[in-house]
């Protein structure tokens, strides 16, 4: 099978990396949903996409453009009907449910719009969760505490989600996403439920993580938010319609300092 390897594209967005293969390599990904018996929705109609280590990518597009489906495929929550998906060199297109669970555990850190923390657990227990399903138990607590420190919540470790503000909850979620040192942080509208100050804080954390070398993929429909990334992928009708670098990304840290959205 001879497939033209488009990974050799000239552009490298984001921080320079030594990796020769991309972290994410999508080729001809299609996904069709059936609504009822007759209507077929081509959510993804042949998506080709490469994301390299250290990139900060925004995926944008209107409702029905397929960006949520793409996000599910990228996060190994769903399998494509056709096409190949390589994540960190592994072909995850045809894996079983349990294999995908292991991949999610090892390679992907999720940050959701609705935070998705377990209300029964406190902050540090929520952060520990990925290590409950993979990895050792002995240094679990220490690693969770370190991750919470990284997002500036070292003084909130015993708080339940209901005792935290939205921004703080999202920071707990980011700490959870960081815990297994994943290949990619996948953020689905991470600022969608937050005020502008908390949004700026979350974006600042994601930018800082990206500067430290983390690959971040963020689905958003807000151009202001996407402007903080280094590359914007636009979806339309199930395919990638535009794929542009952001030449001068906004710096969320500056917005916090200049007081946009008010001080904490």
């Amino acid at each position, binding site marked *: 099978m001879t497939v033209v390897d488009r990974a050799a594209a000239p552009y490298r967005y984001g921080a320079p990396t030594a990796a020769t293969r991309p972290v994410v390599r999508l080729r001809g990904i299609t996904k069709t949903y059936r609504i009822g018996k007759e209507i077929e929705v081509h959510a993804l109609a042949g998506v080709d996409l490469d994301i390299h280590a250290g990139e900060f990518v925004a995926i944008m597009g209107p409702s029905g453009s397929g960006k949520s489906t793409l996000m*599910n495929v990228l*996060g190994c*929550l*769903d399998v494509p009907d056709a096409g190949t998906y390589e994540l960190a060199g592994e072909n995850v297109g045809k894996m079983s*449910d*349990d294999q995908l*669970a*292991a991949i*999610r*555990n*090892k390679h992907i850190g*999720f940050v*959701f719009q609705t935070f*998705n*923390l*377990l209300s*029964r657990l406190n902050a540090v227990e929520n952060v520990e*969760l*990925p290590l*409950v*399903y*993979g990895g050792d*138990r002995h240094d679990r607590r220490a690693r969770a505490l370190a991750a919470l420190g990284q997002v500036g919540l070292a003084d909130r470790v015993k708080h339940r989600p209901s005792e935290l503000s939205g921004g703080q909850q999202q920071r707990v979620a980011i700490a*959870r996403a960081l815990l*297994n040192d994943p290949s990619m942080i996948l953020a689905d509208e991470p600022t969608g439920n937050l005020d502008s100050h908390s949004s700026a804080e979350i974006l600042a954390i994601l930018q800082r993580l990206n500067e430290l070398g983390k690959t971040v993929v963020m689905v958003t429909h807000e151009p202001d938010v996407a402007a903080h990334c280094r590359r914007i992928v636009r979806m339309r009708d199930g395919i990638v319609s535009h794929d542009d670098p952001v030449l001068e990304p906004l710096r969320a840290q500056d917005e916090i300092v200049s007081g946009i959205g008010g001080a904490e």
Partner: protein
Amino acid sequence: MKLYDSFRSALQSLVVNKLRSALTMLGVIIGVASVIAMVAVGNGASQQVQNTILSLGSNLITVSPANLSDQGLRGAGAQSQNLTLDDMRAIQTQLGSSIAASEAEQGAGRWQVTAAGQNWNTNVNGVTEDYPIVRDWPLQSGDFFSGSDVTVNAQVAVIGSTTATSLFGEADAVGQTLQLRQVFGGGGQGQGQQRARIVNFKVVGVLEPKGSTFGFGRDDQILVPVTTAQRVLTGRLNVVNTIVVKATSSDAMTDTTADVTNVLLQRHNISDPAVADFTVTNQNDTLAALGAVTGTFTLLLGAIGGISLLVGGIGIMNIMLVSVNERTREIGIRKAVGARRQDIMVQFLIESMALTGIGGILGILLGWSITLVVALIPQASGLVLVITTGTVIIAVGVSVAIGVVFGLYPAMRAARLHPIQALRYE
């Protein structure tokens, strides 16, 4: 996922929903408690029945006359009068030390008794000298009459403890004289002359009180030598109603039964045991038959408890399904961060097993308290309530198994949820 984490997570969610967990457990608690209590009562009842049988004497083989029948016709109540005192003596001499003891009895019916100015009416029974050994029934005072008393038709009597107090009060009955009377004639309305037969007996011993068997008081009776009963009281010479043989041990009973049958067949000149004019009853058979009855009874009680346990189990399934539904989002989150199907399944299974396991233990405690309360009921006094370790192990095992069985379907539903749908669930 480590088992430790599963347990922690399961217990946590039980603690969070305290009231719901407690109510769900209640079904299992009541189920297990009723199994435990019911089976304990059943076991106690069968123990009591067994004790009652054995209080008539242990290891007994009873010979009684066969019912008379002639080519399929059977006379109502008619029994052949073919067992004799000599039959009993023959058994004694021929079997010798291979049996523990034997005795023969002839009932003499009810008699009016007077002594020391008191009147009493009671049953008189003719027996032989080994009666106390065969019946495991020692004397409270005095001595039982001897073999020679039987030989010479002595007019001596051993009386039950109730009879003794009725006739003699607190005074020592031994050495006193009592009179048995029967009234003939009269024809009613004071016409004709009434004649009374009066026979004097000397009391030589008083039996220890023994309580009642199946409601029949056995401490109110008068025992006289069987020969005296035959010649003086009934006139049915030489005939006895029953011969009772006591085997040396429970194990020897089958052999002894065969021996007794052989001796009697020989004496009665019968070659085919099927047409024997007597029947031999082995006490072990009686015990086994009654054991089967009480066993069925216990099983029935256990089944009633089992049904409530089943209902409790269905309650568990119900609440686990609700719980899975309620926690769909949690399942989605856990799956997103890497939980496999079996991790989710084990989590919910452990949750339902913890519910039933804890419920089972509490149920045992409740069942045990119920037996303590039952023991306080006067009608149940003497009922030994037996909770065996077997019952406890079965009850806990069954309740944990119920947790697995009724938790499995909800757990599988949880495990099969698709992560995206679970995450989007509101």
